[in-house]
């Protein structure tokens, strides 16, 4: 019995070691990410997280999980659209002085694209097209990334 307890404790220690490593890298990424973002949405982050966690809701049937995914996705669509509105109406002085008129036009186009991404997430969720949800979310992420790569300080 002692041998087994020892083995289990050892397993936990090994797991903890893996974890502490990932903690530090995760923290660094988060700090970096927070430093860079001008407009942050905690709600968006939590919703994305909850959406990815639905798979671990063990008692629910797959259709129940889809109901839950749909609910989170509809909320996510609202938050993305709200964020797009904020981005589109960000005060000019926060955009940076170095931006040319062309840069501003691109920025506005990306803000509008973000809004359309939100619409698409909502449309997919409304129709229970869960197989398209990951793609719709990935497109939103791409819109953000492309805009950041082009215009962020």
């Amino acid at each position: 019995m002692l041998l087994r307890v020892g083995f289990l404790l050892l397993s936990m220690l090994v797991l903890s070691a893996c974890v502490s490593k990932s903690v530090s890298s995760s923290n660094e990424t988060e700090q970096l990410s927070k430093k860079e973002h001008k407009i942050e949405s905690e709600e968006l982050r939590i919703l994305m997280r909850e959406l990815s966690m639905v798979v671990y809701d063990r008692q629910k049937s797959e259709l129940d999980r889809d109901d839950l995914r749909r609910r989170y996705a509809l909320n996510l669509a609202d938050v993305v659209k709200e964020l797009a509105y904020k981005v589109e109406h960000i005060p000019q002085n926060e955009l940076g002085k170095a931006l040319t008129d062309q840069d501003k036009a691109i920025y506005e186009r990306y803000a509008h694209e973000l809004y359309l991404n939100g619409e698409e997430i909502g449309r997919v969720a409304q129709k229970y097209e869960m197989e398209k949800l990951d793609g719709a979310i990935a497109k939103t992420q791409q819109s953000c990334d492309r805009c950041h790569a082009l215009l962020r300080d």
Partner: protein
Amino acid sequence: MKKSALLCFFVLSIMGVQAAEDKSELDALKAQAKGLSERIDAYALRQDAEEEPAGLEDEVQKGYIVDDVAGNKAPIRQKGILEMSSADTVLSVGGRIDMQSIVSWPEGAYIAGKIPLDERGENGQLLMSARDSRLWVKTRTPTDEGLVRTLIEVDFLGTTASEATTNSHGLRLRHAYLEAAGFTVGQTNSAFNSFVTLDTIRYPLNYTLVRQPVLRYSVNERLYGVDLSFEQPETTLLDQNGTIFTPKDDVVPDVVARLRYYPSWGEGSVALLGRYITQDQATLSNGSTLSGKDATFGWGVNISGKIKLFELDDIRFDAQYGVGLGRYVAFNAFAAGSIDADGKIELQATYGGHIGYRHWWTHKLRSTLAFTYAGTDNNMENVNTADYDRVNREVYGSQLNLLWIPLPNGLVGLEYSKALRTVESGIKGDMDMVTLLVRYDF
């Protein structure tokens, strides 16, 4: 003159034959041109197919693409055919691979009615099992009347096979139902089940887990949902031998009304249960048959919820109380009521609850600490004193785990759980269990 006429006739005949030969040659040429044209079309189709993205070329080489040389049909780009009843139906297949390694002291199960009462069982026996792996098939079909969704889900917790050889455990039906126009028809989770559940490997001891045939109508809004559910009845009663038996005399479905609530700070639900508990000349566990019959109403309430705290942490809880609640709580460890020698039913109060705190150490690592209690007020005047140790009175449980997400949809976890059971004779038994879980949802 005659000679000239003969010559003319001969020349004309030769010209006629020549014309006929020319016509047949022309026909042959036309046929050749048509054949060439068809082949050109076929080559054009093949060219199109070859210009498809990478991967298709390999399929051509493997012979998966059937090329119609005449060019009458488009190339078939598949190895087999999956035919659906509707062209708009979307079919999805998924499931999970689940491997659990369990060690307990003494040998037992983390289920309210199966916690060992003495130390006779072996200590530290290792049990490894992949039986909780699952497979599901779901469909989604848009119709004029709205979306129709179906699900069939099975696991391998059916007939137990020999662990000495092949471990060929049997399939077991979990869910088989459809949803359309707000109705749910078929077998699935009872609406009385706790809507919010703990993030633990083992189910808590008071678990409200019933799957049964239902006919349900649901209204779903963004902030709330309402369900009215008619569900399969199944009376469970305690007889004089201290055994829970099923009279199989039910006549009215169990009715559940549930309200679900989705505020920004968490989730919650309240479910109300109504039951008509009956027995009609029931056969007891010892084989004897009662002469009388009886029926009475039972009821229950179940509240469950999740409250989000800072970051991603949350508190999850549920609480049940009811008279005649029986099988809806703690895996049928308690009866809905008892029956006397005349067949008269007396319902009993059953209650339970759990609370758990989930903490995220990192984005990939989380823990839950949970405590559970469940108990009942048995009517022991109808039970033989010698059989008191067969009647469960109450259970306590606690769980602590560490769950790690090594890859998306994957889970590795280690959980320690402790359980304590008390029966009506006063005997107590406890058990310690450690479970190592590896799971992947596909």
